């Protein structure tokens, strides 16, 4: 069985709303969750902007899809790697991001954070540890 499980990495390097890539990336992640692969998401460069909290798109007339990230835990998508250097360059800290959690059923359904802030070097390691890399 495990031979059929591949490591999938979704790489997000673009900001939301200005272009549709962030939204359509998330749509792939949601569909892909049904395939029981080993899924990770990477947020680096402008991709880190996808996770900011307090997004309010009412006045631009485009649907706010950022709440969907908080539902990823229900789809067993629990590894969201965010690059520290990308945050730094953009004047952001971890506190500027949404809180995203998942319930660990092996640990009495304890809520655990999905966002893991890692260094650029660690991001390179995550990328080098995949079978399939999908870029958006």
């Amino acid at each position, binding site marked *: 069985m495990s031979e059929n499980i591949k490591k999938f990495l979704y790489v997000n390097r673009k900001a939301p709303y200005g272009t549709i890539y962030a939204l359509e990336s998330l749509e792939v992640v949601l569909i892909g969750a049904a395939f029981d692969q080993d899924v990770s998401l990477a947020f680096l460069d402008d991709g880190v902007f996808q996770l900011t909290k307090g997004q309010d798109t009412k006045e*631009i007339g485009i649907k*706010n899809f950022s709440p969907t990230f908080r539902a990823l835990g229900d789809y067993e998508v629990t590894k969201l790697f965010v690059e520290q250097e990308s945050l730094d360059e953009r004047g952001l800290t971890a506190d*500027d991001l949404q809180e995203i959690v998942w319930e660990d059923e092996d640990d009495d359904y304890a809520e655990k954070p999905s966002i893991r802030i890692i260094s650029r070097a660690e991001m390179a390691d995550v990328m080098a540890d995949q079978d399939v890399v999908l870029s958006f």
Partner: protein
Amino acid sequence: MGTLHTVNKSPFATGALLSCIAHAKDGDTVLMIEDGVYGASTGTTVSDALAARSGAISLCVLGPDFAARGLDTARMLDGITSVDYSGFVELAAKSDRTQAWL
């Protein structure tokens, strides 16, 4: 009233904002729209470059786009004016010409 320049790209993704402020004349207005609004925050790799031109050129940000992206108004660079779509129209109307930095 000079030129109204619009920039719709993140300054961390493309060079449009930096090229724009390098070409804008004193007295011009630069309006950051869409992903361009990411240029309006303090503490980033481009905020010094923007601050250096602030005053000589009038820096504005499209508020609806800023809000959409969950950015913190408290951390907007000093001297940047936030406008809504009506304000965008007014800026265009009172400028001599407009130039989009695509």
